């Protein structure tokens, strides 16, 4: 093994705390994928443009390829693996993507799901234009985005019913 200095950090992901030892240069995306085995977060460019690696840091979407694991130690992280409902059923954004055929190869999907999860929290009933704006920083090479836009609107609907039910 190498002589590089390791940092022992605690990563809080999807409500679970993980202790890992990583070198300072370990990208957060790599730590999630390779140290924690949370391979749902994908890496499409490693320079911040594609958005496949987007996760929620304290509820806010950020590029995990543009953060170091050591810098994330104080935060609460949510990855695609943490988006299902507590009972294991698909969360509203996941469900909407399935219903609307919002994915093909699925590689970009985790980044869209996390981004939209935060997006519809901020704007619970987006118009189509607002839906487009919400996903404007994520690349998808397969779908041409048409169905992803639909999925955003559908997800908002599902989330509204879901929280409506939860209120009752």
């Amino acid at each position: 093994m190498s002589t590089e200095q390791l940092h022992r950090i605690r990563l809080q992901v999807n409500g679970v705390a993980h202790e890992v030892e990583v070198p300072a240069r370990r990208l957060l995306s790599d730590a999630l994928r390779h140290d924690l085995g949370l391979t749902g977060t994908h890496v499409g460019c490693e320079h911040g443009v594609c958005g496949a690696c987007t996760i929620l840091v304290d509820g806010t979407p950020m590029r995990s390829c543009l953060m170091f694991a050591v810098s994330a130690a104080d935060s609460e992280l949510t990855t695609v693996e943490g988006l299902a409902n507590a009972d294991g059923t698909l969360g509203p954004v996941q469900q909407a993507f399935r219903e609307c055929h919002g994915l093909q190869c699925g590689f970009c999907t985790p980044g869209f799901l996390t981004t939209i999860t935060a997006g519809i929290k901020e704007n619970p009933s987006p118009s189509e234009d607002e839906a487009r704006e919400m996903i404007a920083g994520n690349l998808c090479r397969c779908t041409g985005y048409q169905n992803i836009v639909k999925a955003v609107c559908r997800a908002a609907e599902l989330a509204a019913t879901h929280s409506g039910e939860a209120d009752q």
Partner: protein
Amino acid sequence: MKPAPFDYVRPRTLDEAVQALAGRPEAKVLAGGQSLVPLLSMRLAAPSLLVDINALPDLDHVRVDETGVRIGALARHARVLADPEVRRVQPLVSLALANVAHPTIRNRGTTVGSLVHADAAAEMPMVLRLLEGSVDVAGPSGRRTIEAADLYVGPLESSLHHDEIAVEAFFPTLPARTGVAFEEISRRHGDYAMCGVAALVTLDGGGAVSRVRAGYLSASDVPAVVDLTEPLAGGITPASLEQAAAVALTQLDPETDIHATAAYRAHLVEVLTARVVTAAYQNASEHTHQSTQE
């Protein structure tokens, strides 16, 4: 695309941070990382030490008073953009920030980081220069204020010393009877612009143009500001706007790259100068009108 190894500290006080930098000439500050991390991953930069300032206290602020907007080094673009007080006191900051990258990048990237990164294609350095703002920096010998006019010394080069940390940026409020506008043209939505222009137009009490300045991004190798008062003092007309653009171009140096030729960029300078100055003039007229009504 993985960074070369580096040492890492995450100081809890500004002094510690400055000392960490001072001890290592190859050290770099890590703020939002939205510009730095790609450079590290591509191994275009390989500092021996990263000083992560994200745990420093008291830098995560946006303070607004009637003199202007003060933005702490850890305030993210998104936070500044969302602040209604910022929009009220210095609308140009908000107008420009809406064009900085994508929301997800803005959630992490800092406005101060962008200012000291000193990219001539970036929005905020140009805006700081146009508004004649400043940046406060802390170094081993204490704090100093760098005026925007002195901040940008070359392509991607600011006048910060390597052991200085920018702690706060100051964007002064608009002078009375002044309007602003901003527009940029980029290849894709959210990309760095091929050309962008911001303008400040100040009117005198009678509603005539008294001062016009415009800022240009991606039109020279440093953030550029041009005074257009002279060509426009006689009024905003198609002819005077054309002349203003010509004046601007004498002080700019648009270059050819893979996205746009120098000629096209120069053309955009003309088109945007006309549009943005006109819009800023209208904005100024509205303000003036409103204030006379009040």
